């Protein structure tokens, strides 16, 4: 005699139900006295010509959106350090954290938080795994389209999956006129439910490297992630793949001795 109770992972149900909250409510009015002003460097330096030139050196700013995504798609592995500030209406001061980011094709992202409290976040196409000091939560992304769409957006950027992103976002690539190496990639969601979850996702970069990611929410909250010490040619060992992404390399087939 079977129980008919549905299985829903704890975390997924929490997240999915809360996503209903998000979608059911109107966006809050931005409260300017709560949001701290962005004090990062201005994007445009006055007087710089907006020239895109092919550099003779190793790095070159992609000429177009398509070129940028092609460049991303060529990245097999990437590691970087980051610092992050979250400006939330609920908090009087921004939430700060720092740590490491790792990315491996075809779509594994791992974020290791080193401060203020150690934790690890791993995203694949199937799940989001959050491991803290005391517990681990796993969200099966196949169980909710809403959550999957939101979570995998950034991965699709690193994958260079322009086609998938265009289904849900209006994408605008803007090379910076004042700086021949700087560019900006803005993703604006086209339809619900993404329009109710985020207002826009902006990536800033130099040449073929992402230097900053800004996530803006409809209620005015934003998250700014600065990426430094980037290694775009990172090769992960088997042990690192397992530790960072939970990926176990398949054993190589034994070579057949042609002589026998």
């Amino acid at each position: 005699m079977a129980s008919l109770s549905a299985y829903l992972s704890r975390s997924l149900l929490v997240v999915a139900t809360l996503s209903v909250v998000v979608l059911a409510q109107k966006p809050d009015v931005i409260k300017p006295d709560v949001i701290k002003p962005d004090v990062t460097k201005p994007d445009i330096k006055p007087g710089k010509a907006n020239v895109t030139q092919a550099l003779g050196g190793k790095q070159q700013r992609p000429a177009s959106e398509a070129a940028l995504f092609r460049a991303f798609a060529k990245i097999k592995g990437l590691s970087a350090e980051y610092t992050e500030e979250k400006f939330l209406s609920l908090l009087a001061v921004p939430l700060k954290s720092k740590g490491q980011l790792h990315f491996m094709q075809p779509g594994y992202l791992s974020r290791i938080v080193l401060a203020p409290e150690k934790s690890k976040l791993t995203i694949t196409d199937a799940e989001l795994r959050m491991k803290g000091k005391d517990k681990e939560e796993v969200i099966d992304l196949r169980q909710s389209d809403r959550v999957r769409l939101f979570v995998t957006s950034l991965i699709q950027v690193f994958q260079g999956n322009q086609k998938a992103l265009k289904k849900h976002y209006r994408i605008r690539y803007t090379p910076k006129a004042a700086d021949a190496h700087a560019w900006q990639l803005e993703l604006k969601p086209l339809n619900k439910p993404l329009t109710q979850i985020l207002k826009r996702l902006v990536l800033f970069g130099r040449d073929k490297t992402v230097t900053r990611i800004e996530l803006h929410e409809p209620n005015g909250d934003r998250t700014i992630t600065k990426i430094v010490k980037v290694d775009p040619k990172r090769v992960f060992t088997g042990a690192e793949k397992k530790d960072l992404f939970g990926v176990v390399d398949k054993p190589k087939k034994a070579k057949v001795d042609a002589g026998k």
Partner: protein
Amino acid sequence: MSLDRRALIAGCALLAVLGTFLAMQMRVATDITHFLPAGSSADDVHLARELAAGELSRTMVILVDAPDAATAADVSVQFEAALRANETVHQGTARLVAGSGEGVEDAMWQLYAPHRVAFLAEDAKAAAEALTDGALENSAAELKRKLGTPMSTFLIKAAPSDPLLILPQLFERFMGERSGGLKLIDGRFVTDKEDAAVLFLTTSTSASDASAIRPVVDGMRAAFAECNAKFDDKLALHISGTHLFALAAEGSIRADIQRVSIGSVIGLVSLFLIMFRSLRLMLLVLPILGMGFLAGSSACLLFFGSVHGLTLAFGAALIGVSVDYGVHFHCHHLHAGNSGDARQSLRSIWPGLSLGAATTITGFLALIASSFPGLRQLAVFAVFGIAAAALSTQLFLPALASRTRTKTKVSDRIVGGLHRLWFGERRNRFALALPPVAIAIIAAIGLPQLEWNDGLADLNKVDPVLEANDQAVRNRVVRFEQRRLVVATGATEELALQANDKIHRELTQLQASGGVKGFRGIAQMLPSAKTQQEVDAVARTDAQLWPRLERAFAKQQFVASAFEPWRDLLATEAPAPLTFAELADSPLSAMVQPFRFTWSGGVGFVSFLDELTDEQALRDSFAPIAGADLIDITGTLSSAYGAYRERLLQLWLIGLGAILLLVALRHRALRPTLTAYLPAVLGAAGTAGILALCGLALNMLSLVALLMVVSMGVDYGVFLAEHRTDAKARAATLLAVVLAGASTMLGFGLLALSSQPPLFHIGLTSAVGVLLCLLLAPTVCALMTPQADATSTDS
């Protein structure tokens, strides 16, 4: 027109009427609850019976193997659509669940958000602990931690009116009792290993009602074939559920009925041809058999609305009993030297025949007082069947009897031989006494070794392949016990939920101490109204809660004013508690319905257990909780069988006493009374002794069979006692008894070949018993007949 002819026409007309009635109204049931005891409303037996026959048992688990999760989800959609489109499946289905359903997430929010204060904690004490200064500070720290994750987007909207994250924690709590074995992929159930789609189908009729279930299962297979074609026939279907066992049992019972019927007829025809070189006896016997069978079945339909398959099988075996009347008449008509016509022959045997029928009916009347619906039906079948068969002899026998009275050499020789054997001049009384003495000794040795097996499981023979397949499906999906269930009952739903709240606390403690691996119930999703109100009051009546919360959250650098929606919520009046009806009327229905049941005592809620290792501790903890119980369905019903078997034994002994009284009133003398009665009683005791010495444990159905043995054994004794002083009549009766015994043994012997335990027990016990009665009846008659009487009219 002669009296005999008019009687014959009347008899045929009656057969036609009964046959037509049966053809139009016949409904065969195979519901095992017919053989479950009907207890009082207040005891475990009734609960166990309700649970064994309730919705839980009506639910099938369906697996469709698929190569991967995405395909499994797709298969689930296609197969569900095919099932819903199939008319027979649709008609026989109460509920079909294949996924979380549309709107489950929305429904959860809509139903629980307004009541979130009442779901702050499991009870008032836990709620108070959750609202201490330290707990509030921990809540603030936890919220801040969660806001630092990518999921902050989803929390940020809910937090202002739920800073303690009551709803996320609530959903974590009641989903924390993992159902195990299932995942959701694209909203569809798949196995943990993502290798099969999972669907749950609850039928609208009992799982044991094979005639209602067969079209549903056939429809399921047809729907699967349609779906499988879309996937290049690469899928595999697996079904778990009581339904399949019922179908297999029904098929087996039908085969048994057919075998017994055909075998009995062939055997009888052969016997009569050998004995009389004529099928005249078949002509005499068949309408009586038909009348008995039709009358018994019709009576069951009138009283019960249906006839159980086992009753029909028993009825087929009853053929052997009502054949006796025709056989007795025919043997007397040919061999008793009666110079009158057929009706005169009938008159000469009518006292014995009617007394035999009356004693048989008296024996079965005792079963009507039984608490088992199935046994009551058996009794009704037997009483009306035997009575109709006996009375129908007056309609059929005179008109159908042989006019020429031609005896065959074979029958003549057998008559002579039998008479010489028991009543001849050279008979040795010492040798005659041996069989009854031997049987008495066997009974004396065997009866003390008699063992009873009241196990419910032993009433069903389960195909091991079917059982293995069933278990394989359950192992992939269900991790909870099926045999033992925790129930919370009450006269009202609220009382049942209050008991359930307490049960939940005890189970939680037992889980913490390792006495149970896990459990699943409804308490987290639906505490009682009392608990909801108490928890809600802890928060709403705490005037200092808001200032304390402000301080705690300010310490974590939250903007306290952001949580004013929470403050405003606490200031409003508490809503009415969440009810089961609201949940059942929402997309969450499939999540809550399996836990609730109704019974004559009121309402109940079930909790499922995963590996209960300390049953005694659980029972001890339930002792002070009104309405809390651990039901071992099989154990409870088996114990009930034992109790009812003892009761049946008492009724059986009362029946024996009533039979003795009838016989004694008829003869008013010791010798004929003993002649009529002793063979049956000794035969029954000897049967029980033999079976015990062979290591066979008896059960309640064996008692029913022994009752039949006594009834038939008394018939032989009664016939012989009636004609003990007339040599020719006695000789004819001897032949009749031997023929009747042989035909009865044939019927029950064929029944003993059944693979169904109930039919096997009835068949074996009856066949052995009739054989002993057949041996004892003439022996006792010979011993009770003085030598002078035995040989003075010796032919």
